[in-house]
């Protein structure tokens, strides 16, 4: 009998497969088809934006690791998710230098400030986006048509805006690429300001203007379901967000169908799908209790629709999720589960 090295450990001595890095890696995999689709829609401008924003996030993460004398946390893939998600929420022709700002702010203010992975109160990607929404209001609402000609050979003019300059107007360029009847507005804006409702099928397939990754509702749904099936995403959250949004929209639609959009349009337009499946469901910022998850999801859905219908903005998903994130500690606090054997009369 050879002398073994006895290892001492506390129970349990067995462990389920998978760790944080595996979960995060799978989220990245689930985002890749959405990225590919957006590149196909918007060409090299979208590719450049995805690349620049993600690289900025990774470099920023590494920088803050270094500043806080921590080992590199790039291998947990969370910064990659932040980068991809952030890029997907930006207009495809968003100036790259502004993308760098957004990426840096997302990691710096959204994550590193709180102490890194797991400590952040809100979704870092949305912090980055909220910052550039306030800082560059024109650039972030400058939309370009999908599937324009020559999208694989040249950039959208705004993409290459030199640093610290405002982006040029794109009216001439849009005329040049000859996309019929492009009004420069997203389906949400069309609906809100002009009362034109885009066809649901177009929304599902993504042949519309919008942020880089928020245009094909169907693809986002499929990718989200993949993650949910692999148990790396809590299906209850997106379901509740969609339920909350659909019911709220449905109530208003019943009251005045001429004025308010129908619930299907609300579900499939704008950033609701991407937000519900990939941002609201971010584990770090969402509640852990079963009831809390339901309240949180419904709250995001309802607030999104309220902002869309009554706010000055066309889109409300971002603020709704940030509000949901902010409310999470409170929701968790008041929805502690009933402990086994408590508050129930025994027969």
């Amino acid at each position, binding site marked *: 009998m050879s002398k*073994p090295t006895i290892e001492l450990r506390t*129970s*349990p001595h*067995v462990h389920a497969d998978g760790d944080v890095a595996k979960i995060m890696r799978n989220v990245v995999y689930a985002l890749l088809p959405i990225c590919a689709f957006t590149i196909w829609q918007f060409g090299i401008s979208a590719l450049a934006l995805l690349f620049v924003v993600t690289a900025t996030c990774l470099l920023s993460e590494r920088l803050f690791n270094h500043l806080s004398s921590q080992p590199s946390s790039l291998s947990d893939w969370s910064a990659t998710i932040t980068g991809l998600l952030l890029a997907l929420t930006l207009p495809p022709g968003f100036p790259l230098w502004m993308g760098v700002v957004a990426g840096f702010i997302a990691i710096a203010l959204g994550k590193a400030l709180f102490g*890194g992975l*797991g400590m952040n109160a809100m979704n870092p990607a949305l912090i980055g986006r909220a910052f550039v929404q306030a800082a560059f209001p024109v650039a972030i609402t400058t939309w370009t048509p999908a599937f324009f000609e020559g999208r694989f050979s040249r950039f959208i003019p705004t993409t290459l805006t030199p640093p610290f300059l405002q982006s040029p107007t794109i009216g001439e360029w849009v005329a040049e690429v000859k996309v019929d009847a492009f009004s420069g507005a997203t389906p949400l804006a069309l609906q809100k300001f002009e009362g034109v409702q885009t066809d649901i099928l177009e929304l599902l397939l993504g042949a519309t203007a919008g942020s880089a990754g928020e245009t094909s509702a169907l693809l986002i749904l499929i990718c989200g379901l993949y993650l949910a099936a692999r148990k790396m995403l809590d299906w209850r959250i997106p379901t509740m967000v969609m339920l909350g949004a659909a019911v709220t929209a449905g109530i208003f639609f019943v009251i005045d169908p001429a004025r308010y959009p129908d619930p299907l349009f609300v579900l499939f337009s704008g950033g609701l799908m991407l937000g519900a499946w990939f941002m609201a469901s971010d584990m770090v910022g969402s509640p852990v209790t079963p009831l809390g998850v339901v309240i949180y999801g419904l709250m995001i859905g309802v607030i999104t629709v309220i902002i869309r219908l009554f706010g000055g903005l066309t889109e409300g998903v971002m603020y709704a999720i940030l509000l949901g994130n902010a409310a999470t500690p409170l929701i968790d606090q008041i929805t502690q589960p009933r402990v086994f*054997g408590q508050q129930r009369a025994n027969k």
Partner: protein
Amino acid sequence: MGLIDLLFGLKSFTHGIHPPYHKDTAGKPIRRLPFPSQLVLPLNQHIGKPAIPLVRKGREVVRGEPIAKADGHFSVPLHAPATGRVRTIELMPTPRGPKSDAIILDVYEGSTQEVLWKQPREMSDLSAEEIIRAIQETGMVGLGGAAFPSHIKLIIPEGKQVDTLIINGCECEPYLTCDHRIMLEHPKALIQGIHYAMRASGASQAVIGIEDNKMDAVEVLRGNLSKGSPVRVEAVETKYPQGSEKMLIKSLLNREVPAGGLPADVGVVVNNVGTLAGLGHLLPEGRGLIERVITVAGPGIVKPGNYLVPLGTPVRHILQQAGYEGARTEFILGGPMMGPAVSAMDTPLTKGTSGLLVLNEPSIEEESNKIWPCIRCARCVSACPMYLNPSMLGQMAAKRKYEEMAQDYHLNDCFECGCCSYVCPSNIPLVQYFRIAKAINREQAT
């Protein structure tokens, strides 16, 4: 009862986990291992007061003879597992951690090791009190792992009434198959023991709960029960920790033991199958508990199986007999979810030890053991069978808010089943945090 029950009619509780079960030794009949040359018999093999030695250094004892007596009511005696001579009484390592006083017995090699000490009794004449006293005399404790004195369990607290005896045949811990084998090989003794326990506790019915990965045991036991018997056998879902008292009561009877309460609060007494099969053997013969069945298994074991081993057998002897390999290794007494790892090869097998596992786990230094920050994925919340919030508790433990954990987040309802640590993708040793928190709270309370 959960969704599974509604859909498939299978009895279960909510939450819990499905670890790989590795019940590879289920087909291995119980075999007796050769006696070791020395036995180490700690005086505190049970929960409660340690037994008081009746023998001194140099004394010759025969197999089955009492060598330590119960110290009052909340204690049990100890019997000599082999014929031999008492070498000494000294501090020895035990599975439960701290060293404790143990009788060390040199086994006579030439002896046939027959049980020479017994006091047969007629069971049918005994009253409930007499049965309970007889059970204490056997030195029987919960053989499922808790080592709680069996006679105490059967004494129903004043003002409480027990209608049901539940017999725990779940064996929900991975690897372990000793209870499974006992049900297959000793159904008659088990049913005999059930009848004694029913008489002692006053229960009018008995339910044997067995996980549905042991349907052969369900069949065997059903075949041994006569029509109209107050004993019935129920299959329950294979899920960890189905074999926890509270979970099993919930699964079988849909009754919830109140937080901090006892099964008797909902009219139930729970006993393990090994315990009752043991009583079925020992009570009529008037013998003491001197050996038990353990499962020896795990990837590091050459000859895995279910072995009948005298109490006090050192881990080293079992490993020599069953053979093991692996340069770096971990020895676990009991199941991998709740069993302690042992640091010394001299640690003896005690009454509560249900298995010896040798796992070749990745080393502590390896990357796969890295602890990440909690990402609030809520997997622990969905796994906790007590509906606690391990994620929140873990974060509070990191801040050392131990008192708040107990007062506001029900720390004391945690029975350390390990589900939360098992599912945690961040590898946070939640259960260990909770053990520490409880220990510190206990210390501050005194």
